[in-house]
């Protein structure tokens, strides 16, 4: 009997969102059994992967008990009923420490719940814990976390060199890839859902800017920040996005539009659709494995019935420098709130006045990358430099957006690689900030234009590491993005997963 139960619990962690939801609803297993299985998996992996900043097994069990009671009472169950998830530690969670992976917020316990997390709990999801990330979501490898870096569950064969899970949603990507969470929330400012999804062989979608409320999400760059789901496959992402999205009067840029039934609308038949292949993304020296997976993706979409169209996005090469002016500018303004007065860390040196307290607090609390971006942002917004940097960047951003709008006059979606390489070893790119920034070369343009974009696993590199394909769609056309991604997923038949070495 004991062995039987153990096997059931092991198997449950292999299931994704749809299978868990349907299994709980159909009575194949209880939500409590699901929560217990994932709680155990989280506990067993935490020492090796460091995917969570805090774990909340009791919260997962309490949510599960509620779902089981509702089912027993014959009440209707939510879209995520019985599915325990990881919550990126950028979302404020009532009564549970929320840090943005920065020491400046260590010990901060929000007296309120973010809109997105509340929607997920209302849909019947439970919380396994708060997931690690790059500090204030600034980074592409998870090395900037103030609570230790996340280790990817993936390894290059027998080589034990720790690899980056991507960033900033690296705790989310590691947890889903390691099967210690069936799904996780992510946030994406310049690629922070898509690049980590690609690095770990999972799926993730950043919806159109304004679909998911930013209320209660620790702000990085407000004109770019957007929440989205990270899960094993396209269907699971569609289910979870439906639960996360929707109008919120508390977010001034929230879109007042109904949430489409994305899961019900899934359709991998692309006949009559046109897919754009932007020539500017075929950069000099593009990694051979990445180039091959892109060609595979083109062939798969053709096979699904789509017509392939060569397109031009002429301002692509300016997207990254534009981003690295706008994002730090907004960050320097948003992060001015961390002053050691209202919440978080305070460093008050002996005899210090108020200004000295601010400076000491921010010096002690922020990590190096956060300081670097605040300084860049302060500089580009300062008197005498504002027009040359910030205004110029907002103009180039308009041109980048116009490039996309022009392309979408002829094509329905755009296909590119997600990242310029497979996962790299931790520490390899941490000495030169600009080299790290180049990781976002394919994901940043869609962020600047506020477009929906998704990464799905395409295959493995010659080293046996996952590579992602990236689908960009028209504003508000998440369905088109999900459908093209589903067509890729069905043909890629990606089934590789990391060996369980922890």
């Amino acid at each position, binding site marked *: 009997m004991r062995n039987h139960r153990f096997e059931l619990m092991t198997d449950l962690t292999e299931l994704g969102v749809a299978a868990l939801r349907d299994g709980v609803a159909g009575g194949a297993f209880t939500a409590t059994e699901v929560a217990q299985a994932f709680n155990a998996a989280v506990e067993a992996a935490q020492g090796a992967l460091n995917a969570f900043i805090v774990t909340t097994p009791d919260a997962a069990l309490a949510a599960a008990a509620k779902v089981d009671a509702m089912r027993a009472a014959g009440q209707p169950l939510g879209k995520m009923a019985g599915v325990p998830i990881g919550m990126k530690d950028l979302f404020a969670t009532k009564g549970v420490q929320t840090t943005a992976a920065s020491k400046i917020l260590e010990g901060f316990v929000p007296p309120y719940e973010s809109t997105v997390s509340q929607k997920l709990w209302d849909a019947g999801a439970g919380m396994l814990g708060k997931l690690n990330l790059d500090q204030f979501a600034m980074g592409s490898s998870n090395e900037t976390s103030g609570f230790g870096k996340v280790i990817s569950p993936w390894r290059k064969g027998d080589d034990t060199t720790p690899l980056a899970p991507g960033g900033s949603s690296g705790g989310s990507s590691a947890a889903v890839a390691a099967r210690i969470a069936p799904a996780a929330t992510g946030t994406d400012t310049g690629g922070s859902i898509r690049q980590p999804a690609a690095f770990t062989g999972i799926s993730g979608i950043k919806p159109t800017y304004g679909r998911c409320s930013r209320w209660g999400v620790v702000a990085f760059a407000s004109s770019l920040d957007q929440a989205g789901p990270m899960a094993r496959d396209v269907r699971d992402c569609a289910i979870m996005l439906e639960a996360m999205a929707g109008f919120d009067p508390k977010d001034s840029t929230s879109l007042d539009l109904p949430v489409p039934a994305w899961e019900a609308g899934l359709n991998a038949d692309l006949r009559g659709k046109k897919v754009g292949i932007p020539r500017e993304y075929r950069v000099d020296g593009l990694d051979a494995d990445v180039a091959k997976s892109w060609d595979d993706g083109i062939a798969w979409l053709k096979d699904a019935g789509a017509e392939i169209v060569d397109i031009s996005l002429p301002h692509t090469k300016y997207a990254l*420098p534009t981003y690295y002016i706008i994002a730090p500018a907004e960050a320097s303004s948003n992060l001015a709130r961390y002053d050691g007065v209202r919440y*978080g860390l305070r460093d008050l040196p002996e005899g210090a006045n108020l200004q000295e307290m601010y400076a000491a607090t921010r010096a002690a609390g922020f990590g190096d990358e956060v300081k670097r971006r605040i300084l860049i942002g302060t500089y580009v917004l300062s008197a005498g430099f504002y027009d040359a940097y910030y205004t110029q960047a907002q103009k180039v951003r308009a041109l980048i957006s116009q490039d996309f709008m022009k392309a979408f006059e002829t094509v329905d979606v755009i296909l590119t690689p997600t990242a310029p390489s497979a996962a790299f070893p931790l520490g390899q790119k941490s000495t030169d900030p600009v080299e790290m920034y180049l990781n976002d070369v394919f994901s940043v343009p869609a962020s600047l234009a506020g477009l929906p974009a998704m990464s799905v696993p395409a295959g493995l590199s010659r080293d046996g590491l996952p590579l992602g394909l990236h689908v960009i769609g028209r504003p508000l056309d998440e369905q088109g993005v999900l459908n093209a991604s589903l067509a890729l997923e069905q043909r890629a038949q990606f089934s590789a997963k990391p060996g369980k070495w922890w």
Partner: protein
Amino acid sequence: MSVNTADVAKIASLARIKVSEAQLEAMVPELNGILAWVEQLGEVDVTGVTPMTAVIPNTLRLRDDVVNADPLTGGDIRDAVLANAPVAEHGFFGVPKVIE
């Protein structure tokens, strides 16, 4: 444009981040590397282009002009607001003496 140690000290002061001399020295080449890289934007012809203000057309809404329209973000929650303060005294945030 490039920055020197004095510029970085000024920026850090504006940003209210204390930096040591050694940190300043290390930051100068890092920031110059980033600035040199973003400078390529200068070559883009932006004649007649309006700077982007919103990626998705949207109008900012006003909330109802009533007290505590949303109880969560309205008033009468002093203790919740102060709960995370490093120093809270007599219902206020505590800070070092500001006026001599």
